[in-house]
């Protein structure tokens, strides 16, 4: 039975989440050198087109289609066959099945876009397109099926991931590590100054992401009511707490930068994502504070060891997502959301263990599968831009354009 209020909210949420992908392009673009600004934005916005097509043709069916052994969806819904305006009650009884598919499409689009922060300024564009198509097929779709698909083994185990802490943030953050290892450092990394091209653009992207996150987490209730509201309150609380915490930490070291403040917000928003529909506003504040501390010092550590995972996808999203999934196993309250469970702080150690298993398995799988895919693409299609292209900048070398 279709509920028009629920449908309206999920469709609006879809639009909010779709906006997050170009916003991510701005967020990343402002942090790279001027000669790679368009290329960096391009990495995100091409996902919107390419994964939209992939999702309709076969992505949706392998992620959410009728289960095959708890591991993957079948091909029954290839080309969206049988996915119609009628609800599919097992996923969302109050909205058209097509609305659920479209909402999930927006998630499938932004996840590979998140990874791009790992290899900006040196990626070969054609190799990138091949890599992300493979990644969405062999990493994103299976994990989405395990955690969210009807019959998925982690869903059956009882894992709680309200809006994609594991499916989106852990997969993207861990995969970023693997691709960065395969592609190597930018030329002159650590020796040549790499100044951000446009910090206001990064700030604009970050706060458009915050705005879109209300759809990301609030829409994941798949209904317009108390749970969606609770998720939005938690989202805002964690983003705010993390941004303030980041600002305080960086101020205690030296100065509170807009770049740091914005990054803190993203770390907090990523961390609260899996917990947002299950936790109280006060728990969300705690999740945000801890996320900022973990992510901040992970960036410091990464810089210290000289590892060029350029825009810290792992530190922000990988760490944020892992902490978020664990935090869900600590702070979740069944009293707030009967569809959830109690976490460790509410007397349920089993849920905490389930969350730990999910983190470990998804992290190991994402890393191994991504490493193999990146190696294959690097061998067959070239993952890294040529030296002279990197020197000139990817905007001119690969896209024939330049900014300002």
């Amino acid at each position: 039975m279709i509920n028009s209020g629920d449908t309206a909210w999920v469709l609006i949420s879809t639009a909010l989440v779709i906006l997050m992908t170009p916003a991510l392009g701005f967020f990343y673009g402002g942090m790279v050198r001027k000669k790679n600004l368009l290329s960096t934005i391009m990495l995100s916005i091409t996902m919107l087109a390419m994964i939209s097509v992939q999702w309709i043709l076969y992505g949706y069916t392998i992620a959410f289609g009728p289960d095959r052994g708890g591991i993957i969806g079948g091909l029954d819904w290839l080309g969206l066959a049988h996915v119609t305006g009628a609800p599919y009650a097992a996923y969302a009884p109050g909205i058209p099945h097509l609305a659920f598919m479209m909402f999930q499409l927006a998630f499938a689009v932004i996840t590979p876009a998140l990874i791009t922060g790992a290899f900006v300024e040196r990626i070969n564009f054609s190799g990138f397109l091949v890599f992300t198509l493979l990644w969405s097929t062999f990493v994103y779709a299976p994990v989405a099926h395990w955690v969210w698909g009807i019959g998925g083994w982690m869903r059956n185990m009882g894992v709680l991931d309200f809006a994609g802490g594991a499916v989106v943030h852990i997969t993207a953050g861990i995969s970023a590590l693997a691709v960065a290892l395969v592609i190597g450092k930018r030329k002159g990394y650590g020796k040549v100054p790499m100044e951000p091209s446009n910090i206001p653009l990064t700030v604009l992207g970050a706060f458009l992401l915050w705005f879109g996150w209300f759809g990301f987490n609030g829409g994941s209730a798949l209904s317009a009511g108390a749970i969606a509201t609770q998720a939005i309150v938690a989202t805002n609380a964690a983003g705010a707490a993390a941004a303030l915490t980041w600002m305080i930490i960086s101020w205690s070291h030296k100065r509170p930068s807009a770049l740091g403040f914005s990054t803190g917000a993203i770390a907090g928003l990523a961390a609260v994502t899996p917990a947002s529909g299950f936790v109280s506003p006060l728990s969300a504040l705690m999740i945000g504070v801890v996320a900022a501390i973990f992510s901040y010092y992970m960036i410091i550590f990464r810089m210290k060891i000289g590892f060029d995972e350029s825009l810290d996808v792992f530190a922000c999203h990988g760490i944020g997502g892992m902490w978020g999934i664990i935090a869900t196993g600590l702070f979740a309250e069944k009293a707030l959301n009967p569809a959830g469970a109690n976490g460790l702080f509410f007397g349920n150690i089993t849920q905490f263990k389930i969350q730990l298993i999910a983190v470990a398995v998804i992290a190991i799988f994402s890393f191994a599968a991504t490493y193999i895919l990146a190696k294959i693409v690097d061998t067959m299609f070239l993952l890294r831009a040529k030296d002279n292209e990197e020197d000139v900048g990817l905007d001119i070398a690969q896209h024939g354009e330049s900014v300002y």
Partner: protein
Amino acid sequence: MKKIEAIIRVEKLEEVKNALEEKGIIGMTVTEVKGRGTQKGILLEWRAGEYRVEFLPKLKVEVVVKESDADAVVKAIADAARTGRAGDGKIFISTIEAVVRVRTGESGQTAL
């Protein structure tokens, strides 16, 4: 005739311009430049930690004056541009062989 090239802080242009006007020097060329001195640039805040910016934006003010005015003009620019902190800039003085005013074809000191 002498050419005086002064590398100054961006925010000091107005004061330098006024100091030159007091000396009767109106014409000047101002160029946006980047450069560095013995400090090797400055440190700015990254998301966490810092990054070094090696070449800082400055302005280059160029004026050509009579040889007899050069010392006074250099002093006026230096006094106006000085803050006492690293990064105040430098002044270079060189000899000019000839000057031509495009509109009239005048040359030499009358063209200044």
